[in-house]
């Protein structure tokens, strides 16, 4: 083990560059998948003829595929049909597709958990269906969804490390290059990697817990 050599300033800088990519990819994917997830989840909940069925098929298909396969698909298969993506765009596309499907299910079950009586009361007081969803069901459901949504974001952040297979220069990838210099670096580098992932994800859990307590 060579702690001083492994944790030299240059290596830490290189790791930080990788971590920035990880955070960037995760951040964009979180925003995009949250929007798509809410839209898809609501569409499936609303039971619109045909459209909801189509959304259900898409969501169920994606949810039952491994993320690694989707990453390979966006990077290796899409170019076959003329759509070439850089590793970072392919990573964002794959993570967004996969996490949107997961979030859609969280949103749908959150909406389902709101008592039917609320909806009926809102409708009978003259609100339209959209107004009912937007002002009565959604705000209550969103609050209940916060913990599972945040834990989904945490797994998204961790899942970015899978993109190492398409040589995305993210956190794990840069860690691997550092310990490829010298096998004795492996333990200290892993310690740093563990620490960084833990800090960010633990902060996310703390935020989730705070939000959860507020509604109780």
């Amino acid at each position: 083990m060579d702690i001083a050599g492994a944790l030299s300033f240059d290596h830490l800088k290189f790791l930080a560059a990788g971590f920035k990519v990880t955070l960037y990819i995760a951040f964009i994917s979180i925003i995009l998948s949250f929007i798509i997830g809410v839209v898809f989840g609501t569409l499936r909940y609303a039971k619109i003829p045909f459209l909801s069925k189509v959304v259900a098929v898409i969501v169920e298909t994606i949810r039952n595929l491994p993320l690694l396969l989707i990453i390979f698909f966006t990077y290796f298969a899409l170019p076959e049909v003329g759509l070439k993506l850089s590793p970072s765009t392919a990573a964002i596309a794959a993570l967004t597709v996969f996490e949107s499907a997961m979030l859609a299910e969280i949103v749908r079950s959150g909406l389902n958990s709101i008592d039917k009586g609320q909806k009926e009361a809102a409708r009978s007081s003259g609100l339209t269906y959209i107004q009912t969803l937007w002002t009565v069901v959604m705000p209550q459901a969103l609050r209940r969804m916060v913990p599972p949504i945040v834990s989904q974001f945490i797994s998204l952040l961790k899942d970015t490390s899978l993109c190492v297979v398409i040589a995305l220069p993210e956190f794990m990838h840069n860690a691997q290059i550092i310990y490829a210099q010298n096998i004795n670096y492996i333990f200290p580098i892993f310690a740093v990697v563990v620490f960084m992932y833990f800090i960010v994800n633990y902060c996310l859990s703390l935020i989730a817990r705070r939000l959860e307590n507020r509604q109780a």
Partner: protein
Amino acid sequence: MFKSKTSKIAGVLLLSASMLLSACGKGGDKETSGSAKNALEQIKSKDKIVIGVKYDTRLFGLKNPSTGEVEGFDIDISKELAKDLVGDAKKVEFKEVTSKTRIPMLNNGDIDAIVATMTISEERKKEADFSDVYFDAGQSLLVKKGSPIKGLEDLKKGTKVLAVKGSTSAINISQKAPDTTVLEFENYTEAFTALKAGKGDALTTDDSILYGMVDQDSNYELVGGTFTDEPYGIAVKKGNEELVDAINSALKKMKENGKYDEIHKKWIRSN
């Protein structure tokens, strides 16, 4: 680095919707990208060559975190190639490839050539065109000093051999020692770490790479000599004879003017 990526992503989402339409566009696509609009001239007109190299393989292509540069035998050979093809050793752009991504990247046009410890094999010749051999490696075994394994014949039932995914050495070892169990890892560092952790009895790959490992830890040694011939070649997209010819003549020049020997001596230890 990521400028305007967001707009790109929006484009991606739109494009995926229009993917259904791509069936009709496909024929046209092939004509422009796949045709031999002389790859050599393309390289010359954009005044740089894009080469796929490894970023994680000691001695051949390893990124140095301090300088941000990739270093190794493959890198120096690539620079010499650029000097010959576009007139300047600096006019080369490196892109990271792995054993799995290199052929798709070549076919997508992301890179012009692969210089990434790639063994020329009949199977691969169907997917890409190869230059002459630029490095002669041979597969060997790495074991801990004092190991009962002295060569290929000691790989019996119950011994575990570590190899790297997507490499020819993994296929070779299961043919030469069919009784042994082969465990495959993502890259050489992981395979070596696994050997050190006692996850296997021997590690197999090209001797040149194994020497790099002995450099890091002298408790390990090579045994049994080499038992295969692993000629490394430079791969280009299929049907680019002019580019292959140009690469071959560049290689020949390197060997004649002593540059090749210089690079070989700088990186490769042999005994």
